[in-house]
């Protein structure tokens, strides 16, 4: 290949490499090529295409919500999604849990030297698809390249901006005794999909991640329930158990769960049994928990079930005035147990 700029013949020409090089972070021609060939074709829009030092946004009057999240998942790709989809859904969902309509995202990417471009392209394609699905535009971005061994392929940070609703303001401290506790779908899928892959575990079926944008569900709930949509949470790291504990603590209420009502898919349940894990503590990326007054529970469930993502939604418990700060599960056999926060990572048991 001949380089047009110099006319010299190079045995390993720049640009034909199929992997990220340190030079792609140099700020020079390779950096420009990285943006031109990989990022902008997939993520470009009138705001991003300005390539200014900062994005200029015009927003309607009112309050905005801002949230940031960093994604370090390993492996980068897993059944049901990849780090790109996750980086959009994670931040967009955080905005949605405030009742905010997601509008804009910024994207910071740390690439490890040696990352195959085909992986980067798949990640960016998924990221673009997820952003389009969520109705958000990537308006600002940054890329850095670090030496091989200093990152797990790639890390992504996204910061999101969303428009808050004037009166519908769900918050963790607003749960009140008598509220119905609703969940929008099956739990434990993301965590088990990643863990099965990471540990090289093979099951008869492949568990797929549930990574998804929850905004459509929230919009439905917002319309159906209004200001009485008291609490929304997406139980990501730490799973449903941790999210409910945080709400119980913030609202100074107890939460009573019904084990028989918990939507644990058969494959997730079986994988958890095998590894000695509890699906209540396994991460989700496309499930929300909502708390609404019991009188509005049916309306809320109907709103959730109107969307395919919420087809499996159901009521799993009730907010109570007893045992404030504590989540108590009524087991399928009729016993009770406390569902506490874990002191650290969930560790597989020996027996």
């Amino acid at each position: 290949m001949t380089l047009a700029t110099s006319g010299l013949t190079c045995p390993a020409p720049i640009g034909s490499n199929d992997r990220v090089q340190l030079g792609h972070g140099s700020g020079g021609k390779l950096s420009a090529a990285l943006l031109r060939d990989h990022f902008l074709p997939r993520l470009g829009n009138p705001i991003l295409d300005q390539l200014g030092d900062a994005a200029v946004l015009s927003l309607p009057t009112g309050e905005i919500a801002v949230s940031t999240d960093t994604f370090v998942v390993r492996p980068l790709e897993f059944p049901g999604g990849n780090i790109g989809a996750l980086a959009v859904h994670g931040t967009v969902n955080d905005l949605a849990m405030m009742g905010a309509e997601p509008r804009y995202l910024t994207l910071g990417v740390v690439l490890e030297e040696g990352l195959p471009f085909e992986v980067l392209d798949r990640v960016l394609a998924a990221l673009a698809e997820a952003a389009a699905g969520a109705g958000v535009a990537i308006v600002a971005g940054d890329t850095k390249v670090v030496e091989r061994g200093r990152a797990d392929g790639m890390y992504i940070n996204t910061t999101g901006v969303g428009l808050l609703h004037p009166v519908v303001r769900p918050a963790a401290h607003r749960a009140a005794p008598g509220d119905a506790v609703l969940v929008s779908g099956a739990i434990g899928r993301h965590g088990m999909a990643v863990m099965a892959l990471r540990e090289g575990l093979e099951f008869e079926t492949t568990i797929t991640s549930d990574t998804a944008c929850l905004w459509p569900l929230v919009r439905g709930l917002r319309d159906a329930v209004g200001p009485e949509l008291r609490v929304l949470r997406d139980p990501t790291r730490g799973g449903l158990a941790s999210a409910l504990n945080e709400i119980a603590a913030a609202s100074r209420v107890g939460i009573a769960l019904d084990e028989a009502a918990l939507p644990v898919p058969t494959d997730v349940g079986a994988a958890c049994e095998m590894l000695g894990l509890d699906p209540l503590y396994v991460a989700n990326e496309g499930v929300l928990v909502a708390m609404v007054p019991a009188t509005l529970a049916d309306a809320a469930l109907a709103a959730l079930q109107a969307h395919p993502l919420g087809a499996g939604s159901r009521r799993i418990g009730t907010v109570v005035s007893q045992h404030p700060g504590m989540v108590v599960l009524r087991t399928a056999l009729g016993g009770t147990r406390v569902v506490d926060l874990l002191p650290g990572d969930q560790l597989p048991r020996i027996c």
Partner: protein
Amino acid sequence: MRYLSEYRDPEVARSLVHQIRDTATRRWVMMEVCGGQTHTIVKQGLGELLGDAVEMIHGPGCPVCVTPLEQIDKALALAARPDVIFASFGDMLRVPGSDCDLQQVRARGGAVRVVYSPLDALALAQGNPDKEVVFFAVGFETTAPANAMAVWRARELGVPNFSVLVSHVTVPPAMRAILDAPDNRVQAFLAAGHVCTVMGWTEYEPIAAEYRVPIVVTGFEPIDILEGIHFAVRQLEDGRHEVENQYVRAVTRAGTVPARSLVEQVFRLADRKWRGIGEIPGSGLVLRDEFAAFDAEAKFGLGDVTVEEPAECRAGDVLRGRLKPHQCPAFGSRCTPEHPLGAPMVSSEGACAAYYNYGRFREMEVVGRGS
């Protein structure tokens, strides 16, 4: 979910609870030996269902809880070595040694890996020929065959950079130690189903006869445990003391002969210290001389270490059933799952950790009713 849902059927459970309550003419005290059974009892709230009919004492059958401090400290020393990859089952990572745990060693740069099988550790050794891979071979007779297999395979394949830090214990001597204690309260045992899957139950026949104590080989699902308790209550009411098998879908009297024979070829019996309990003669397994090349203690010259356990920790009394966890002065204050003094507060199977959650809730219920 075949083989799971049928053993968790609420109707069957209710019927068994009724049968237990109807059969018991007094409150019987029995011990489930295995931590896996403790886990089910706590997770399903079975103690509450049984009410006054039966008091369950959580036995010393959690391998995480009884692994002695000396062995944990040796594990920590090995894991900190730059030439070592230390492989372990997951729940050993949080067990406190004298001054830290394996997670902290990992944070300081030690290569600590969680594996699900000792054969994975062997594969790790084959894949990292420039490193020493040490596997933490802990557990009861249940994990012994797989651990024996890893050592056997290592010798067969000639993997010189693989070794095991052995801290194996066996159930029958511990049961004798509990029964021999002057203040013993245990009137019947639920024997550990998975241990018996390997070993069968012939070892338990002399114990049942000598101490006149019913022993029921029991599985791990809620229905298994309730049925095991029912069998034991029936024996106690009838004045019988037999070894009975509830876990018929997995256990035979002779056990799994090839597994037993492999364990016997690789390990021999030895005295072993139990955390919180002390030394129990003939209760441990150590590598036979033919496999000394794979013994991490010899390979790395770890030698005899004696470590004093925190005086404040009453784990021994708890593991023997003398003290309920919440009766320990340190319970819930100086000893919590976040900052455990002793191992039973670490593992989710540990009696103290189980009580920490359950007890807090119960106390609040009482307060709630009183106010």
